[in-house]
């Protein structure tokens, strides 16, 4: 499959976000890209145990959608969640430390790569169980609704998760009860090592919204402005009591499923075709064309971001490993 350049994005001619806002998005996407590149190296150095799932190429979905949320809103994410946690404002240092099992990590080192969580930011869970992010978000949204709090929950999942039972159960329940939820499916074309169409009965995952009586919207996941507009409309709809929306963001992961996967199952040329629509480069081209941020300023910004990400990983590596007592404390209730 080739990148989707067609007319799939839903909302038309929106007011552009303030230029400053787009620069912050640009910076955040650079930060996520640099973070993920560094994580790959940390794994290769044996500084991180277990496995990891990187999101290079998908940055615009995380940053565009999550920036549509308010500070009190909830967010649930997946095991490919580093970008989403950073988009929600988690510091690279807290995330690096978590990946390395250190006491300064966001979960004091007991969570790891697949469980970046920060309740202070409404990031109430990062789930390795496929589909769990959707059901937990519905529960959190319903709790808020019953308490009369005007809070929205945004849930991320991947394309493969839309074949899981909890995905359909969550959509049905959220629609029935008009739960204030925004479901975001990152369709990166592969569920682990399988092309989507070999495991899935529909081409457009947004079609699955119809079965549950909610809007299903397809958006170009490489276009951060389009993602943000679509998510903003869905968040507003949820907050006004009209119920959930299913957003399908068509995107692509540059790397394999996990760190040891060279993704040799992909057809020749597919990766290169998608890289021509790199989400960071696309926004960069717009910012340069509109004379908001010149190509030179973009390079300088990228260098700054790289330095700060490098410093964060070095600092995180100096954090100590949690003691057994601390681990017990953070895992078991007294």
């Amino acid at each position, binding site marked *: 499959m080739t990148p989707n350049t067609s007319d799939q994005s839903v909302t038309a001619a929106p007011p552009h976000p303030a230029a400053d806002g787009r620069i912050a998005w640009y910076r955040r996407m650079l930060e996520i890209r640099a973070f993920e*590149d560094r994580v*790959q*190296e940390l*794994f*290769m*150095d*044996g500084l991180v*145990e*277990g496995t990891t799932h990187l999101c290079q190429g998908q940055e615009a979905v995380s940053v565009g959608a999550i920036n549509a949320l308010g500070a009190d809103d909830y967010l649930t994410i997946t095991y490919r969640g580093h970008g989403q946690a950073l988009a929600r404002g988690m510091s690279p240092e807290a995330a690096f430390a978590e990946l390395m099992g250190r006491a300064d990590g966001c979960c004091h080192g007991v969570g790891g790569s697949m469980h970046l969580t920060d309740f202070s930011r409404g990031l109430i869970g990062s789930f390795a169980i496929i589909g769990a992010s959707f059901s937990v978000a519905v529960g959190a949204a319903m709790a808020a609704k019953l308490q009369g709090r005007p809070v929205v929950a945004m849930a991320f999942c991947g394309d493969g998760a839309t074949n899981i039972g909890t995905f359909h159960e969550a959509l049905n329940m959220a629609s029935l009860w008009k739960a204030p939820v925004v479901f975001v499916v990152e369709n990166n074309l592969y569920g682990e090592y399988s092309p989507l169409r070999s495991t899935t009965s529909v081409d457009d995952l947004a079609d699955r919204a119809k079965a549950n009586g909610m809007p299903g919207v397809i958006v170009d996941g490489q276009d951060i402005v389009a993602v943000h507009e679509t998510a903003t409309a869905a968040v507003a709809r949820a907050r006004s009591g009209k119920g959930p929306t299913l957003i399908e963001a068509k995107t692509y992961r540059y790397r394999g499923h996990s*760190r*040891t*996967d*060279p993704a040799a199952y992909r057809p020749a040329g597919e990766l290169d075709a998608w890289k021509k629509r790199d989400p960071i480069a696309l926004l960069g081209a717009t910012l340069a064309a509109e004379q908001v941020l010149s190509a030179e300023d973009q390079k300088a910004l990228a260098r700054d971001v790289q330095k700060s990400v490098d410093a964060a990983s070095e600092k995180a590596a100096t954090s100590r490993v949690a003691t057994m007592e601390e681990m017990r404390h953070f895992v078991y209730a007294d």
Partner: protein
Amino acid sequence: MRVEVKMPSVSAGMESGIVVSWLKAVGDTVERGEALAEIETDKATLDLEARVAGTLSEILTDAGQEVPVGTVIATVETDE
């Protein structure tokens, strides 16, 4: 600056890896993230990527050789 390229630790408990083939020759320029060699481990065969941009200055492990994790298998001379 000369930067060492080491046999990576791709999975927990990995002790050694095989350099299947070199994808760059001595004197070739390399970009950060570009594949230098193909590495085989007990789990997978994957690309070993350059961490810095520069010129591949030395190849220290021939294709087909198995070496312990951490062995310096090549060096890259950076432009800085």
